């Protein structure tokens, strides 16, 4: 059995890596300006002499593809961490209102600073989003002490999301005309307009946080059995829970700061990964969710750009179409298995 499982996991990982590479390359290849495969390679290696192609690939498409991959991975891992925390497969940064609250704090900071003509840099954006994430996480934790039922907690999260979205609309309304377009686009969610400097910040934050999550995959595995057993196995529950909250908040804050709120990826991808790999072992699911999230967002980003090209639709529109059905499936399978016990 263990051999069979190892083979399955290896095959699945290989498959994920390959399709990630394929879609990553398609992100570079496809767009309003048509480029050939050779031109893309030329631009990437710096050997091509077409400066327009080089600009399009290196300055526009490459950062965008990298951002989509990294942020998609970040969202999925963030979702998986939240699911572990709440021991519920339908918890995620979007449904719990964490993304929306991060969006709100970023929007407020942006409109306030824009008044004085200051543009926030990447780190400040992430900082603002992180504060928002922690605020909503705090609210959710307070509520989770009061409500026993997970469904009620999710509904509370969705409501927090609505409140934050409404307040964000208000903030956007009061923004300067010149910046409204910019802010509006961002608040709908998009991977466009991310430059290479942003990508560096994203990579630093996301890779650090995901590595940290990977390192705590052992206590996460113990925690899946419930708090009592985890405690008996020597897990320091308090430290562990704080780690989960901080890491999931940092990851979803990073996504929101650069791409706005992106819906359902955090639930859909870990669910798909668990089904494909046939396990919920964090040591497998964390790296697999990261790659899976990258694939999912690369595909969704491609669709958002191509569907009505040259007009782009918001990334959340696409992730919702693909992600929400998976969320429903996750919910149903959760219920079925509970019933069959």
């Amino acid at each position, binding site marked *: 059995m263990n051999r069979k499982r190892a083979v399955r996991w290896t095959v699945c990982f290989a498959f994920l890596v390959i399709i990630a590479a394929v879609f990553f390359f398609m992100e570079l290849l496809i767009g309003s300006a048509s480029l050939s495969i050779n031109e893309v390679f030329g631009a990437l290696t710096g050997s091509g002499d077409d400066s327009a192609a080089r600009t399009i690939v290196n300055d526009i498409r490459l950062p965008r593809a990298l951002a989509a991959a990294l942020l998609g991975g970040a969202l999925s891992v963030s979702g998986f961490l939240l699911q572990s925390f709440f021991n519920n*497969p339908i918890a995620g940064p979007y449904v719990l209102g964490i993304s929306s609250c991060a969006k709100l704090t970023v929007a407020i900071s942006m409109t306030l600073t824009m008044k004085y003509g200051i543009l926030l840099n990447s780190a400040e954006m992430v900082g603002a989003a992180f504060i928002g994430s922690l605020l909503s996480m705090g609210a959710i934790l307070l509520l989770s002490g009061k409500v026993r039922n997970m469904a009620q907690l999710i509904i509370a999260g969705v409501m927090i999301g609505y409140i934050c979205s409404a307040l964000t609309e208000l903030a956007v309304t009061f923004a300067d005309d010149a910046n409204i377009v910019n802010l509006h686009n961002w608040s709908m969610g998009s991977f466009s307009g991310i430059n290479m400097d942003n990508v560096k910040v994203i990579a630093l934050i996301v890779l650090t946080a995901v590595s940290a999550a990977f390192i705590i995959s*052992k206590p996460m595995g113990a925690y899946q059995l419930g708090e009592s057993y985890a405690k008996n196995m020597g897990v320091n529950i308090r430290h562990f829970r704080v780690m989960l909250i901080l890491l999931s908040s940092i990851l979803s804050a990073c996504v929101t700061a650069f791409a706005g709120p992106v819906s359902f990826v955090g639930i859909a991808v870990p669910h798909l990964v668990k089904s494909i790999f046939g396990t919920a072992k964090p040591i497998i699911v964390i790296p697999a969710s990261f790659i899976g999230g990258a694939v999912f967002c690369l595909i969704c980003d491609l669709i958002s750009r191509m569907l009505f090209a040259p007009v782009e639709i918001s990334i959340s529109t696409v992730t919702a179409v693909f992600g929400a059905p998976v969320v429903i499936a996750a919910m149903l399978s959760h219920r079925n298995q509970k019933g069959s016990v």
Partner: protein
Amino acid sequence: MSRTILGSKDLSVGYGQKVVVSGLGFEVCKGEILTIIGSNGAGKSTILKTIAAQLPFISGSVNLADKDISEIAAQDIAKTLSVCFTERIAAEKMTCEDIVATGRYPYTGRLGILSENDRKIVRDSMELTGTSYLCDTDIRCISDGQRQAVMLARAISQQTQVLILDEPASFLDINNKLKLLNILKELVRSRDIAVVQTLHELDLAQRFSDKILCIKDNKADRIGSPEEIFSGSYISELYGIDNGTFLPMFGTAEAKRITGDPQVFVIGGGGSGIDTYRQLQRLGIPFSAGIIHENDIEYPVARSLAVELISEKAYEPISDESISLALKAIKKCDKVICCLKDFGTMNFGNKKLLELSGEYLK
């Protein structure tokens, strides 16, 4: 090192400052099963959680392997003491083998990768509990009995000297209850470990424990061998049994006696009357019974169910005096039921009673 592996002195347990049980002192040695009994809400689970270092205690001390438990690092506690609860595991996509393997947690490295030795221990634990055939099955898709055995295998694979189980037999059918407790007994003996458990099944507590700790009115009321605990009316007092009669010899209870003027007189003996007594109880008919020897198997049952019981001293032939007492009782009844088929020397008096009874009926 002493044989005592786990003990407490003047321990107060509870939540926050709210004391649930106080003045708790006990010792459990390697090779022993200690069972905690007491009514619902007496604080048995609170005690288990406290001695398993899951809940901070309010005052007193807990000693684990000759050390104060509050000074032992969490990882070391994990290697000395394992727990097994009845609650359902909500973990998704975990096979029973995965669950059992979590018992190896305190021994694996940073990423929790199992060594060949760890795998062997997991396999052995599953074999010991008879769960090997479930290794690839999802933990959510097995029965309560199977899950309980798997969780026990998990605790065993942790290779600790103390095993703590909260109501391990609940939800199990009688054969699975026996199977589980036999595994525990075997484990305690072969691995020289100690088991601390709570049980609601008094009959099983009586048969499978080396020591019994009784919790009543927020304190440790008594601790002793099953023979000491299951004697006289102690269990009845411990649980405040007033809805039936507890029979310490069997570790079980008879339903509540039907009171009122007896309508039927049952002649029984040697266990032949038990079914009739229970039937009459179910039908709500008050009855008298006799003439039963005090060492008769059905004596405790008759005594708990009959309104009036005419008895005879053990090993003595039934005396005329007892017969006349019985006839007096029959006088008040409408009917006599004789459950006896044969009459021997010692209960020849019952034959006489049956012959005379016709004239005496009301």
